[in-house]
């Protein structure tokens, strides 16, 4: 339980910091201006550094995991997505991973039955939960654009109104808020309910889930419960969007809890497993075409290796070879 409680406690402590700081220390400027700029700078520079660091490292071999028939004889039906034979199809394959979690869709659950015998059932819950989690987070982030722009571009407006189509509360309820919370709950429950998952999960697996959960809860409370005054919020976000340094008007501690946790998340990304958002694009088992027999892949550090040549081999075995009637190069 230490693995779960520690990160939970950590998120609570992190949430208290801005609360105390703004309520008792009047540190609005620190939490509203200085920390957000710092966090964004760390995220951008950190991710840039990580990406450059990855890309600088060579890909010595072409090692796609082939999950379908390769391109071979003309009449053999190929699977261009699972065994792409050109860079375009490889890009599509990678997009199917990034956008739809293709590999996770294959997930099965193995069980030991009597006999003994192994039985595999389709198990798409992780795929569904993961997809719901990531897509709702993306939509939530995108529709936050309204805080950073005078007028919202058409596509973002459409996403926003689609997200609000269940117009039952005031203010209108966002579907993704509920989906995100449900998905986080599922992802945490999943780690806790299965003994394999309990063993393999680390504190650093729970921490980002709790952190994002905290952000969502603070945001939802502001919108539906405490109904934060939106005008000073918008004025602060517009200041941030225009790289201004004007001190914010009073907003309320809950907003700063939300903002501070977001900042923690941004800073956390480049130094944690949340890097996977970049890593997936660079995974050599997914982003390369399966064409290494048709097109030579070059390894920039291909080492010079001395191997045992035929001449050396024949020198050792010449007499035996001659006796056996095998042809030799030197008599």
């Amino acid at each position: 339980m230490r693995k779960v409680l520690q990160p939970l406690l950590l998120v609570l402590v992190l949430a208290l910091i801005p609360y105390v700081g703004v309520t008792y220390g009047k540190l609005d400027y620190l939490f509203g201006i200085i920390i957000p700029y710092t966090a964004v700078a760390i995220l951008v520079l950190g991710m840039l550094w990580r990406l450059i660091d990855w890309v600088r490292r060579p890909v010595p071999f072409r090692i796609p995991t082939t999950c379908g028939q390769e391109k071979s004889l003309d009449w053999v039906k190929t699977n261009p997505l699972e065994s792409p034979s050109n860079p375009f199809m490889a890009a599509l394959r990678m997009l199917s991973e990034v956008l739809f979690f293709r590999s996770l869709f294959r997930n099965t659950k193995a069980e030991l039955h009597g006999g003994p015998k192994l039985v595999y059932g389709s198990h798409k819950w992780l795929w569904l939960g993961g997809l719901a989690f990531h897509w709702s987070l993306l939509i939530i982030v995108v529709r936050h654009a309204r805080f950073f722009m005078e007028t919202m571009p058409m596509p973002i407006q459409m996403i926003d109104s689609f997200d609000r189509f269940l117009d039952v509360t005031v203010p209108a309820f966002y579907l993704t808020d509920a989906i995100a919370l449900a998905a986080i709950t599922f992802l945490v429950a999943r780690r806790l309910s299965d003994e394999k998952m309990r063993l393999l999960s680390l504190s650093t697996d729970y921490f980002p889930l709790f952190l994002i959960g905290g952000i969502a809860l603070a945001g939802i409370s502001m919108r539906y419960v405490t109904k934060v005054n939106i005008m000073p919020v918008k004025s602060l976000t517009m200041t941030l969007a225009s790289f201004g340094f004007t001190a914010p008007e009073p907003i309320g501690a809950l907003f700063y809890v939300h903002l501070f946790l977001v900042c923690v998340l941004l800073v956390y990304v480049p130094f944690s497993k949340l890097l996977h958002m970049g890593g997936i694009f660079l995974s050599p088992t997914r982003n390369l075409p399966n064409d290494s027999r048709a097109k030579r892949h070059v390894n920039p550090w291909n080492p010079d290796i001395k191997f045992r040549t035929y001449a050396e081999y024949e020198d050792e075995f010449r007499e035996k070879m001659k006796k056996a009637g095998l042809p030799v190069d030197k008599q």
Partner: protein
Amino acid sequence: MSKYAPKTEELKKEFEEKKPRLLKGKFDGMDWWDIPVEFRDGNWCFPAKPEVLDELHFPNPRKWAATDKDWQLPANWEKTIRDGMKDRLKRFRSFKVFMDSCVRCGACADKCHFFLGTGDPKNMPVMRAELVRSIYRQDVNAFARVLTKFSGSRKLTPEVIKEWHMYFHQCTECRRCSVFCPMGIDTAEITMMARELLNLIGVNNNWILAPVANCNRTGNHLGIEPHTFEQNIMSLVDDIEEVTGVRVNPTFNRKGAEILFITPSGDVFGDPGVYTMMGYLLLFHHIGLDYTISTYASEGGNFGTFTSNEMMKKLNAKMYHEAKRLGVKWILGGECGHMWRVVHQYMATMNGPADFLQEPVSPITGTKFTNAKATKMVHIAEFTADLIKHNKLKLDPKRNDHLRTTFHDSCNVARGMGMFEEPRYILNKVCNVFHEMPENTIREQTFCCGSGSGLNAEEFMDIRMRGGFPRASAVAHVREKHKVDSLVTICAIDRASLTPLMRYWNPGVSVYGLHELVGNALIMDGEKKRTEDLRENDMAGFEEDDDE
């Protein structure tokens, strides 16, 4: 049965007792790094003999065993491992990205045959990678160095090395987990790195390094010298004549042949691999192929792959070197698993460009193998499927009517090459009864035999029989449902290892190479009345006194 494995009944009982659970033992409230590593009979391979290491100029030759308390690691071994890791992280983007981007979603957990068979939590692929990742974190993340338990990082100790030795030799580099990983993390890649690192400090496996040393010196893993290699194939030629009445005439080290044929040496020496070799020889004779076999490049397999990428390159180099010396046009490769991973994904990169060879064209059908135009090496199943498609083979599938078959996709050919259709096409043309195993156990989801990547050692039998259990369970399914009694494969290690696996779990099921069945079905010019298959077992409906 082997003294290194429990009796089948005991293992069955173990499974019955824990079902439907997969994990063996209780781990509640435990951290994985607190679970001790225990070496016992049947779960470790003998280390490389000192003379083998001397021959290879590998470090730290000594006599030792995994059960020893002190492994006699060399001075400064920690630095060797850390520096080796840094170096490999620099050279392999895969290693770096795979260390960084795992989210521990657990999708891989129940995909590994070793986890399914042993129930050992550290055999979940994610855990296997964490064994290395926990050390990696120490080096790259200052927070991880301080918050060890929070971040799952730990110090490099001799216990860690023992754990690596155990679990990176309970991975056959089969890549099944990587099919399911949403990040595309390939444990095979991590195992390759870990084994390279372990070899730097003399923690190794004799069943891998002895064949490597043999292959370097004699040209093949089994250490067969040229005259014996030739004699052995000639004795197969005699056997073929006995069964079919036809005398085939392979040539050796012949300059000017059109094609160089290379297959794993297991096909020349091991039972039942030799019957597959007889199938190749019959096929080549049937179509009048201008080919030769080399005693120098007499190994298709490459145990260097399980040692280090430098060793893989060194052993593989012989193929092109010999093809160039003999002046052949292109290379034809026999049935093998990891050989084809190497040929398909590594060979041209390591030892190419092969501009002294020509783009492969079938001399019989004129088909251009454009998918092999850079590497210039064609898989025998591609070659034979093309022959059958063009009606170049006279086949009588009834000659395999005494066999009820299913097909085992070899891991490397499946997930490291993507060849699924050609062998099935051939199999359907050479036999009448073929049933697929359940869909989660074939094609890209195929299960390893449990003995791949150099773990086919007798003393490792316990883990091998457990690791092979998922495959055996799938075979049992088609045996019950369709009375299947023949497991057909296109891998030499499969032929050697599935045989004891079937004896252990599914007695009565025999293991065949695909081209053995081709050999059975081929109607040869000038043959005698065929009543027996290549194993000299009676065929069904071809009895001696049967006048039809």
